[in-house]
């Protein structure tokens, strides 16, 4: 029997965030055809592919565009924690994050020696970032690299012809 030929497609998938009555908590699942492959079985919060591409480069470009659209006027610090611990939102250290804000010309939040924000990061966003122009606000959000709504996931798909 000949093996079925397959091709890799790069899917842009939604990231699942579940509201826990205080903030949105990230669910690290990706789309699983076994779990979510049945017609009509999806719930709104399930991760799901939204568009597919033949190259990772194109998929990443689309993901970035969708990410910007989804961010809109959301506050990133509602996603991942109580708004006091930067490590729940970013892989950058408090120092690196502060330096990045200074380069962007944005007043950074104040962190203590442990990297905890002394005031709410929710408020810092509302006061310092919400009113920025789109490009600058997105540049700040880009530093919060754990708060994403889409991710690129390769999938193997049978190909014929």
């Amino acid at each position, binding site marked *: 029997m000949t093996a079925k030929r397959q*091709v890799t*497609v790069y*899917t842009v998938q*939604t990231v699942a965030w579940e509201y826990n009555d205080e903030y949105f908590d990230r669910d690290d699942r990706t*789309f699983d*055809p076994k779990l*979510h*492959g049945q*017609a*009509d*079985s*999806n*719930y*709104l919060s399930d991760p*799901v*592919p*939204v*568009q*597919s*591409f*033949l*190259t990772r480069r194109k998929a990443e470009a689309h993901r970035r565009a969708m990410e910007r659209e989804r961010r809109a006027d959301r506050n990133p610090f509602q996603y991942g924690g109580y708004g006091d611990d930067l490590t729940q939102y970013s892989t950058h250290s408090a120092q690196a994050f502060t330096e990045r804000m200074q380069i962007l010309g944005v007043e950074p939040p104040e962190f203590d020696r442990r990297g905890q924000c002394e005031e709410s990061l929710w408020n810092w966003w509302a006061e310092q970032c919400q009113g920025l122009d789109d490009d600058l606000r997105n540049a700040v959000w880009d530093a919060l690299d754990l708060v994403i709504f889409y991710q690129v996931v390769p*999938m193997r*798909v*049978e*190909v*014929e*012809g």
Partner: protein
Amino acid sequence: MARRKKDRLYLVERVVWNFIGMREVKVVPTYLAQMAKLNPLTSGRSLPVFGRGEGLVPVKAFRDRADADALRDNLDQAAWAGINPFHYGSQVRDWSSFDEGRLRDWLLDHGLEPPAGKKVTPTRWREWYDQRHEALDEFQRRAIRQGLDRVVFYQVSELAE
């Protein structure tokens, strides 16, 4: 210069419909027995209602557009066999690119008497389909599918490198 054929694929994708609610019924129509099983909170006397999600799940890729279209048509036809299409969405614009008046005219043109009244509720449309489903001939079934052109379960996307 024309793009080489191997640089593009035609991807059949499953359209994701998310569960959004239930329709209570006194008796589940026989033809909807399978649909009743899709009810994640099954009580035996309710049928699920779905809303179109943003998901497009890769199913199979083809080098040839006609092959992809053929699979899409077959899968879509199979999906339509055991459903009430008015459960896929909650208003005329979810079901059709016609407005309500044009949809009614379309049905009349194909020998189908639409539900009476100026503002017909989603429940009334669903009951109307339940009542007529068994008696529809092939011509009328096709006309309903064409008229409800937004109730689709599969589509083809062209992917290029």
